[in-house]
Each structure stands twice: as structure tokens, then as C-alpha cells.
């Protein structure tokens, strides 16, 4: 994976802060009643963002109303802790509130990842290659056309991937385990899971291109 050459260029100094962001920094970095009031106000904002985010994702979750509220409250509380602990890391590249919202959204993601294992809703034992045609939208009526492709993919998974890559491919692609939930299960983070899948995807595509199943001319970037 690459480094984005524009990432460093996005940094700004606090001198360019908008007035509202500067006020947040001043009050949260202060003391006494003014700081307490700012913390209370920020918590209310983060709770609203976390609640909206949980409700936005709710149709795809196996959680009830009270559980959703619990996730939102926990996410808001942890986001507030993260924001206050990292206050000196706010570089002023965005509005302060946008930066703070990010912590609420990421905390919701992390908490839902942990929740997945309470009721996965998918069988986690064994491999499930049968669901792959449906996963990628292959037409059952054209089975004779894609059967060899998926057989080649299965061979490539067995022969080209490392044991860890196979385990991650199996969980995400064959069982539909969300990446964040898998990261919790494997005691790692989203980035490590993504990197393993990135390398696996590249190997698998190269194997299928070498066997003539995919045309390198269609997508020549891999």
C-alpha cells in the first residue's frame, strides 16, 4: 500500500483555527467550571453523533433498542475520554467538532465489532464455498461458465495464501465476518486485517490472471 503524498500537506497550525474551534480548545484546556461546562456540552454532542451513527447502522445489526442505546452511551463516553486525552494532537486541519465526531464514529465501529461475537448470526465452523457464487452475484443459470473460475480461486486460496491470509479470507469472504469483529477475535486491528486481505487479493488475482481466468487488461493496476 502507498503513502498519500498529500497527507503531510493537510497539516495546519492553530493560528488558522476558526473561532469556534479555538474556543473549544481554550475551554477544554482550561480548568474549573468553564471546563466542566465544555465537557458536558461536548459529551452531549458526542452522544448525539454516536446515537445517530448507531441508528444509521441498526438495520444491518442484530441488536435491540436498549443494546443500541448502550453502545451509543459507551461510545460517547469513550470518545470524550479520547478527545480530551488527545487534545494536544488536534492540528486544526478541520473544525474541532468534525475531529471530535470522528472519535464517536470510530468508537461505535469498535464497539459493534465486539458485539458481533455475542450473536454472530453466521455459522463459524468450516468453510462455506457454496455461498461464494451468491456473494459475487454469479447467475446460477450460467454455472457452467463460472464453475471453473471458482474452482481455480479455491485452489489459489489453498496454494498461494499463507495460513493467516487463508484464515482471514475464510472469515471475511466465506463467512461474512465484519473486519472489525475479526480484528477483535484475532487480537489485532483493522489495518492489519486489511493489509493481510490486500496482499491476499493481489496474490489471488495474479494467480487467476496467470491461468487466463481474468484479463489483466481490464484492471491492470494490481
Amino acid at each position, binding site marked *: 500500500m502507498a503513502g498519500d503524498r498529500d497527507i503531510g500537506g493537510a497539516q495546519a497550525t492553530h493560528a488558522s483555527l476558526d473561532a469556534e474551534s479555538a474556543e473549544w480548545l481554550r475551554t477544554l484546556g482550561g480548568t474549573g467550571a468553564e471546563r466542566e461546562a465544555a465537557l458536558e456540552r461536548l459529551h452531549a454532542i458526542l452522544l448525539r453523533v454516536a446515537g445517530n451513527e448507531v441508528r444509521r447502522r441498526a438495520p444491518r445489526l442484530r441488536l435491540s433498542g436498549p443494546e443500541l442505546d448502550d453502545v451509543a452511551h459507551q461510545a460517547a463516553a469513550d470518545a470524550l475520554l479520547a478527545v480530551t486525552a488527545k487534545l494536544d494532537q488536534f492540528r486544526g486541519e478541520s473544525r474541532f467538532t468534525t475531529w471530535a465526531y470522528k472519535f464517536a464514529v470510530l468508537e461505535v465501529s469498535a464497539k459493534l465489532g465486539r458485539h458481533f461475537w455475542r450473536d454472530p448470526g453466521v455459522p463459524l465452523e468450516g468453510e462455506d464455498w457454496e455461498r461464494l457464487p451468491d456473494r459475487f452475484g454469479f447467475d446460477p443459470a450460467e454455472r457452467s461458465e463460472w464453475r471453473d*473460475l471458482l474452482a481455480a480461486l479455491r485452489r489459489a486460496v489453498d496454494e498461494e495464501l499463507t495460513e493467516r491470509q487463508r484464515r482471514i479470507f475464510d472469515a471475511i469472504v466465506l463467512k461474512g465476518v465484519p473486519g472489525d469483529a475479526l480484528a477483535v477475535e484475532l487480537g489485532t486491528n*483493522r489495518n492489519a486485517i486489511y493489509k493481510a486481505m490486500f496482499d491476499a487479493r*493481489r496474490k489471488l488475482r495474479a494467480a487467476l490472471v496467470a491461468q487466463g481466468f481474468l484479463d489483466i487488461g481490464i484492471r491492470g493496476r494490481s
Partner: protein
Amino acid sequence: MNGWDELDRFLSTDPRDVGCEKAMDLLHVYVELAARDPEAARRRHPGITAHLRACGPCQEDFEGLLAAVSDAIDY
């Protein structure tokens, strides 16, 4: 899009992809730009754009933060 295209799209990797960590580090900056001018966000941060296209969890977080920023505009 048929199954062949979908599988090809899934297996294709973009060398500009910056990965989850870097994308999340600048997500707040990217989101503000995307809310104002999506094309400018894609031009200025091609590595983040490439990553969001391929990473479901990060795309989900992007959509959540974009919704939060859009909601805030209405307040």
C-alpha cells in the same frame, strides 16, 4: 455488473491505497472536503479515495462521519 466483474473488482488492488491507519488519521479532513466538493476530495487525496473504495469498514466510518457533518450543518 456480473459475477466475473464483481470478483475482479474485489480482487483488484490499487497501489495508491494508503491503508486503514492513514485513511482514518485524516478522515476528518477528507470528510469536510468531501462534504463541500467530493471531486476535490478525490483529487487531493487519491490514496484515501482508493482506500475507501476497497475497505468496507472504513467506507462505513466515512459515511457515518459525513452524515454527522451534514447533520451539524442543519443545527
